[in-house]
Structures are given as structure tokens and as C-alpha cells.
């Protein structure tokens, strides 16, 4: 008699709770009356996330690799990533809750009568909440998945909602839709590579699981061409998601076109999920073949840091600049992939949290700077903001300083930890490259601060809106965290260090 596979629902519960909340959201969108929807959706989303987090906290020490047969591995790194993603989602949703950023009816033609009436009547569709939750569920699955099917499914589950969310912007809808299109086409393109890579690796090892792959490599039982091509193709999918050069081109365009709250959420959470999966694949599945991929990935890391840092310098749009900044950070994080040691894993966990919080905060600030036509992202119009709104400018500068890795901010500790892990693994050249590109990167962060504070505004149409209470909470939390993690990093670092393990 066939027995059904044993699933450990307690361990899978966080994901299931989020999925449940998402489904509930869909129902709400369909059946609850317009005026209640927004608040209800928000409540469902936040409650779902809190419950999921609580469940996650409860199971934090129950690591096992057979929670769902061999498809997922609930281990330290996985749980930590899931927690981080939940936190990002929570903060992200606080900012997303400000409807002013989203099209009332995404399906309505830009400028059409339909749209105008939706705008006037205040009929706001709130599908963004369930979409976010679906994406979150995919993100939570991605870093714990241990076979290629699960990985692919998770990748798609996290991506597909994001493609849609990128196109939801209320203003500059053409740009937003273009971002969605680009993100979708390129994302699908990269998933195809990922899938083909998975197929090749399956061909090499005869198994879809990472453990099977490792065993095959140890036994050197298959065709090396399949293995090598498989590694490359699989990497393309991952490198695309983390935004590594030369698979980064979508990043600036999508970051710029997508609604800013989405950009912030996406930048933080996707990066965490993608790095979680990348680390697991390379640490668990491909560790044994490191000799063949390490130089290539190291090269990608170096190029990514440099391109991110250099390209950011000539950007004239705040969101694009932050996009390139995120590319540079992907480069730093990739050094951890190459380092292949426990310190690097712990460092990455910390770094992702530090970077993610600052990113959400920074994009949160971007949502506040507006003129009559909506958000203002042209850097030249941010000039002199420090005079108009010292607090907002100071907090934004704080995030920038954290990105730049200035001591006493969380970014510095992350960078320090990553670089020391790289040094420990003997990849000193990566440290040097990292340090040099940091030096370049520092320039544009500081120049932006300089523009905020040391120059006089050229026009007065730009203003900083009074943020909603939720946005205020989100930004405050991220700002405070950025400082606390910089001054007393042990609070999180020790946790990250404890959770820095993969189960095979």
C-alpha cells in the first residue's frame, strides 16, 4: 500500500499561514465591499505575517531536512531567512499601505475615462496585498528548497506576483507597465536558463535533489559537460535574481519604473530570498565542485561590485542610483558565496538584514519626496532638501551612510563581517576589490548627502509630504535598526552566527 508522504505541518506552517492569508485576501478582494477592503486587507496581511513569524519563532530550533520528504530543509539559515523576509514584508506592507502609490484599477487604460472615474470615486483595488503575500510565500520557500522542482516553483511563485506588482503604479503608468514587461520577459528568460540548468544537472546526477547532486559529484559519476553547463545555467537564474552583472540590466529599469514601495520591498526581500537559495545551492549542492565555479563566480562578484559602484555615479534618478547601489551590494554578498565558510554564511545573514532594512527605509523616504505630479526622483530636484526637511534628509543620509559602510551604521558591520569571511577563506583579492569599489561607491552616496545638505534648492515645488503613521513607523523602525545594528551589532550578529548552518 502506498503511504502518503509525511509532511511536518508545524514546520511548514509559516509558509502555509502566509499562503492562507493570501488566499483570504483574494476572497476579500472579491467579496467584501469596497470601503472595508483596504483596511481589512492590511489587517489580514499584517496579522498573517505576525502569526507566521510567531510560528517561525516557535520552531526556530527544530531543524530538520525531512520536513516535506526531501524537498525542503528547515535549518538555521532557512529559518533566519524566512524571519528576515517576514520582517521585510511587514515593513514593506506598512509602506505599501499608502494607496497613493498604486493605480486604482491596474487594468484600466492610462488616462482613460475608466481610470478617471476610479480615481474620482476613490474605488481603489487592493490586490497588491494578496500579491505581496504570494510573493512572500515564494520567497520563504526559495531559501529552504532543496530540490530543483521546489526551487523552480518557489522562484516562479515569488517572481510572478512581483512582475504584476511592478506595473501597479498610480502615476507614470507607462513607465510602470514597461517595468513590468521588462521584468517579466527577462525574468522568464532567466527562469528558463535556471530550469535548463536544473535539467542538465539532473542529467548529470540522476537526482533532482541537492544532496543527490553532491553525491554524484563526489562519485564523479556523470558527464562533466552536463555538470559544468548545468552550474552555469543554474547560476544565471540565481545571478539574475540577485542582480549580478552581467544579468543586472533589468534592475535599474524595474526599480525606477515600479511603484516605490514595491521597489523597496522587492529590493530587500527578493535579495534575501535569492541569496538564501544561492547560498544553499552553492554551499550544499555544488560545494564539491567548487574548483570549477569559484573563479567564475568570484569574477562576477568583482565585476558586479565595480559596475554597480561606477555606474551609480552618473545616475540622475534617486531610484536608479539606489538600484545600482543594490547591484554593488550584490557584488559584496557574492563574495560570501565564494568564501564557502560558516563565517561568510553568518555574515551574509546579518548583511541581508542590515541592507534590507536600510533599503526599505531609503525607498520609504523616496515615497515622501513629491511635487504636484507625484514622487520626485530626479536627484537634481532633491538638492537642498536638508534645508526644507532636515529630519527626512538626515534619516535618508543615515541610510546612505549605512549603504556606504560608514562605521557605527549597520552597513559597516555587515561589510566588515563579509570581508573578514572572504579574507578568512583566502580570497584576499576579493577583499581588496571590495574595498576599492566601496571607495568608489562612497563617492556617490556622499555626493547625494552633499546635495541634500550643502547646496541650495533651485526650485520650491518639491516638498516632503507628512508621512502616514504606518510609513512613519516603518521608516522609524528601519532607521533605529540601522543605528542599533551599527552600534550594538551583537544583538543580531550572535543570532545570525547561531543560525548560520545548512542541513543536508
Amino acid at each position: 500500500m502506498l503511504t502518503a508522504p509525511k509532511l511536518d505541518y508545524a514546520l511548514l506552517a509559516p509558509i502555509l499561514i502566509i499562503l492562507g492569508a493570501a488566499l483570504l485576501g483574494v476572497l476579500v478582494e472579491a467579496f467584501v465591499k469596497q470601503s472595508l477592503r483596504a483596511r481589512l486587507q492590511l489587517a489580514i496581511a499584517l496579522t498573517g505575517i505576525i502569526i507566521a513569524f510567531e510560528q517561525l519563532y516557535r520552531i526556530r530550533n527544530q531543524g530538520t531536512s525531512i520536513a516535506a520528504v526531501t524537498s525542503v530543509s528547515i535549518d538555521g539559515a532557512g529559518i533566519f531567512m524566512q524571519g528576515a523576509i517576514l520582517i521585510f514584508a511587514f515593513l514593506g506592507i506598512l509602506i505599501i499601505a499608502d494607496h497613493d502609490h498604486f493605480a486604482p484599477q491596474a487594468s484600466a487604460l492610462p488616462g482613460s475615462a475608466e481610470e478617471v472615474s476610479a480615481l474620482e470615486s476613490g474605488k481603489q483595488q487592493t490586490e497588491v496585498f494578496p500579491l505581496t503575500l504570494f510573493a512572500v510565500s515564494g520567497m520563504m520557500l526559495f531559501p529552504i528548497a532543496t530540490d530543483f522542482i521546489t526551487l523552480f516553483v518557489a522562484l516562479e511563485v515569488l517572481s510572478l506576483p512581483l512582475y504584476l506588482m511592478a506595473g501597479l503604479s498610480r502615476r507614470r503608468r507607462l513607465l510602470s507597465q514597461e517595468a513590468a514587461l521588462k521584468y517579466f520577459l527577462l525574468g522568464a528568460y532567466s527562469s528558463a536558463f535556471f530550469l535548463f540548468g536544473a535539467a542538465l544537472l539532473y542529467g548529470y546526477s540522476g537526482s533532482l535533489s541537492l544532496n543527490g547532486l553532491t553525491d554524484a559529484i563526489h562519485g564523479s559519476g556523470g558527464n562533466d559537460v552536463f555538470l559544468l553547463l548545468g552550474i552555469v545555467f543554474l547560476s544565471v537564474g540565481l545571478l539574475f535574481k540577485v542582480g549580478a552583472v552581467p544579468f543586472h540590466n533589468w534592475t535599474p529599469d524595474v526599480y525606477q519604473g515600479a511603484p516605490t514601495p514595491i521597489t523597496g520591498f522587492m529590493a530587500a526581500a527578493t535579495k534575501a530570498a535569492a541569496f538564501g537559495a544561492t547560498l544553499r545551492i552553492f554551499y550544499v549542492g555544488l560545494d564539491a565542485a567548487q574548483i570549477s565555479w569559484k573563479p567564475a563566480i568570484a569574477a562576477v562578484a568583482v565585476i558586479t561590485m565595480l559596475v554597480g559602484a561606477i555606474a551609480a555615479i552618473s545616475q540622475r534618478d534617486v531610484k536608479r542610483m539606489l538600484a545600482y547601489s543594490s547591484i554593488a551590494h550584490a557584488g559584496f554578498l557574492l563574495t560570501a558565496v565564494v568564501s564557502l565558510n560558516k563565517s561568510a554564511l553568518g555574515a551574509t545573514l546579518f548583511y541581508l538584514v542590515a541592507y534590507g532594512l536600510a533599503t526599505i527605509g531609503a525607498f520609504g523616504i523616496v515615497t515622501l519626496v513629491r511635487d504636484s505630479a507625484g514622487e520626485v526622483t530626479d536627484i537634481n530636484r532633491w538638492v537642498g532638501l536638508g534645508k526644507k526637511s532636515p529630519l527626512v534628509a538626515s534619516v535618508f543620509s543615515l541610510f546612505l551612510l549605512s549603504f556606504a559602510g560608514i562605521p557605527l551604521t549597520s552597513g559597516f558591520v555587515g561589510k566588515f563581517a563579509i570581508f573578514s569571511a572572504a579574507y578568512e577563506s583566502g580570497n584576499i583579492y576579493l577583499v581588496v576589490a571590495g574595498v576599492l569599489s566601496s571607495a568608489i561607491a562612497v563617492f556617490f552616496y556622499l555626493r547625494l548627502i552633499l546635495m541634500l545638505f550643502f547646496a541650495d534648492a533651485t526650485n520650491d515645488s518639491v516638498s516632503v509630504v507628512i508621512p502616514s503613521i504606518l510609513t512613519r513607523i516603518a521608516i522609524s523602525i528601519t532607521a533605529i535598526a540601522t543605528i542599533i545594528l551599527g552600534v550594538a551589532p551583537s544583538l543580531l550578529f550572535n543570532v545570525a552566527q547561531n543560525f548560520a548552518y545548512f542541513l543536508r
Partner: protein
Amino acid sequence: MSILTTLQLLPLIGAIVIAVLPVGNAKLIKQTALGFSLLVTIVSIVMAFGFKTSESALQFTETRSWISAFNINYAVGIDGMALALILMTTILVPIVFLAGWNESENGRWSVKVFYILLLILETMMIGVFAATDVFLFYVIFEAMLLPVYFLIGGYGVGERAAAAMKFLLYSLFGGLLMLAAVIGLYIISTNQGGGTFDIAKLSELRIDSATQNWLFLGFFIAFAIKAPLWPFHTWLPTAAKSATAGTSTLLLGVLDKVGTYGMIRFCMSFFPDATKTFTPAIITLAVISILYGAFLAIGQKDINSLIAFTSISHFGFITLGIFALTSQGLTGAIFYMVNHGFSTAALFLTAGWMIKRRGSSQIADFGGLQRVTPILAWSFFLAGMSALALPGLSSFVSEFLVLLGSFAKYPVAAILGTTGIILAALYVLLAVQRSLHGETPATSSGIPDLNLREKIAIAPVIAVLVVLGFYPKPVLNVINPTTQTVMTHAGVSDPVAKVAK
């Protein structure tokens, strides 16, 4: 809690207190800031009296775990060198407050921000010399750039934004190289039985020579940018030109000392072999700095950039003394750091008053000030005399010790360095002649002499220069044990006189 921690906390508390004071009441803010800085001065002097010169170990130590994962501690403690530099700092800060009483009022931001930044800076300046954990040192080393960045950019003049940027980029670049080296040291210590950032433990590591060379360079370039050594100096004149007098004083007087301090504290004690390898090259750079800085000072038209270039020359002397690695050279260099702090303070503050009164920093716009503002003129003159190391002023003692100490080992460098004193006479006297002597132009005729507050500010600086010139013994006694420790660690001893009695 160590008195060192108290010393660091006091300005910080001051900053917090000021933060809650009403923005409008500039006078109250200034008085509070001055009060706190004076309190710091007093506490530091109390600490100095508790310092035992007989002990060569670190004193007033305190260690608290900070980032346990990396065994990073909040660890402080001072030896003679650190004590001397901390005292210099705590004395200079209230003087800067007093001297630049109104310089915060033409800034981009409020008076309040100015004093908050300065007090935070003071905390860091004390901390950077007190830190005995390399990580802590590094963190402060980098973080203290920010207040200065905002002080230059927010309260400076002219191309202040660009100057602030240049300053910060240069420093951060050096800092990042140092970060790589700090990480390297940490990993090596991990491999040799327990990762640590403790200075004492790190100096006992066994590091192969190739690694030593690279790590040494990482530290050294950072310090060479900080204490600007040719050819890493071009940020300094720009910064000095744009910063307010008080900021320049602290920047050149204290912050840049972290560079030379670091060379002794880190480069030499961590990498004795690399130090030997690089010494000839560094001595060469030092000599180039001495002469180059002096020549450029002669060629400057702006009074602040002139002072900046004199400092480059002086940092050349300090570096020369350090790497000569003799008792006289090292002690001279450390004493030079202290003297240069006061001497530069005198120059910048008096020059600042002149500039403020005249509304221009071009030397050519002055003239005949001695007839109009004798006290100001005298102060500037004495500051200049200190810059050219006139015997009887403390800078002479240190400059002479440096040259004497390096002559025994590097005669050519010492001889070239000595010719620098002719150039020093030229750059000081040219500036003095152009600004103080000659006919008084109509534009300068009505300007007021120093007021009481300014007199009170400059008097202690000049007093220190004169007193230490005649009686340097207390400071030398404090510094000598450090020198001996460094030399013992580096495994060198003084050259023996060829014809001893």
C-alpha cells in the same frame, strides 16, 4: 568605569544637553558647550595627575565586550603618548570654542548643530587616542570624519562642499585600505589561536614578511593620507581653505595626528619587519614632504593654504622622526605632534581673526596690521615663530630632537630636513611681512584689535608654546616610556656615540 570612559562620555552628554536646548538661544548653547569642554579639560588634567610616568604599561584601562562574535571589545587605556595627545585635544577644544565664538553663526545650519557636531567630535578625538582595540580605533577613525565633513560643508567658506567631499573621499579611501589590513590582522590572529583586536596581543603575532608588507601598506597609506604625507596631501590645503578656523585647528591639530599616532601605535608595533623594509622609502617621502610643503607654502597666496602647507612640511618632520627609530627621533616626533597642535591652533585662530576682520584670506589683502592691531599681530607673529621652530618655543625642542635623532641613522635625510628650516623662515617671514608689515592700506585701517574673549583664547596657546619651550620636561617624561616601549618592541636601540668618553 575608567576615567577615560568618563572623559569620552562628558562631551557626548554635553551634545545631548545642547540638543534639548532651544535653538534660538545661541548664547546659552555656546556657554553650555564651553562649560562642558572646560569640564572635560579639568577631568583630563585630573587624569594626567593620576598618570604614573614610571609605568610603561597602559593605564586607566577598561575592557567591555562589544561584538562578541569577533571578540571585539570596547577597550581603552593610555600610555604617555596617548595621554599627551588627549591633553592636547581637551585643551584645544575649549580654546576653539572661545576663539570661534561667532563662527557658527554664518553657517548653513544652526549654532546648535555646530556645537553638537564639535562635542561629538571631541568624544571621538579622545576615543581614538584611548582605544586599545584596533576595531574600536578603526570605527572612531572613520566615524570622526563625518562631523568634520559636516563642519566644513556646513560652516565653511568658499568651495566648502567640494572641499568637504575631497577631504572625506581621501580619508575614506585610506580608511578602507586600512579596513582590509585590519581584517587581515584579525584573520591571522584567528589562525594563531584566537581572533582578537587587542593591540597588545596583535603585536605579538608572527606574520610572514610578504603579508607584513601588504598589511603595513594598508595601515600606512591610511595614515599617510591622514597626516598628509607627500603625495597624499592635496586634500589638506583645500580643506583648510574652506573650513572655519576652529575646524581647521581641530582637523590639522588633532585629527591629522591620528595618522602619525597610528604609524607609531600600529604600523611599528604590528609589523616590525615591514617597518624596516619600508623605512628608507618612508624617510624619503618624509624629506620630500618637508621640502615640498615648505616650497609650496612659500608659493601660496591664501593664508589658510599657506598654513596647510606648513603643516605638510611639519608632518614630514614628524614622520622622519618616527621612522628614524631612535629615542630622540621618536620622542621628538611625539612631542612634535603636541606642539604642532598648539602651534597650528595659534596660526589658524589668529589667521582666522585676521580673515574675519578683513573679509579676505588673500595674504596680499593685508598689510601693516602691526600698526593697527598690535596684539593680533603679535599673536600671529609668535604663531609664525613657533611654526619656524624658534628656540625658546616648544616646537624647537621637538624639531631639533627629530633632526638630531634622525641624523645618527639617516644623515642625508637629516641634512636635507635641516635645510627645511631656512625655507620655514622664508614662508613664515614672507607671510608676516606681507600681512603685518608695510604701509597700512586704507581697507585695514579701522579694524579692531583682539577683544577680551579672543585674548583669553589665544593666551593659553602661547603660554603652552613658551612654557614647553623652556620646560618640556613634564611632557618628555610622559612620552619617553612610550618611546622606549616602541623601540624595545621594534628591537632597535640608539646608535652609540662613536667617541664616547
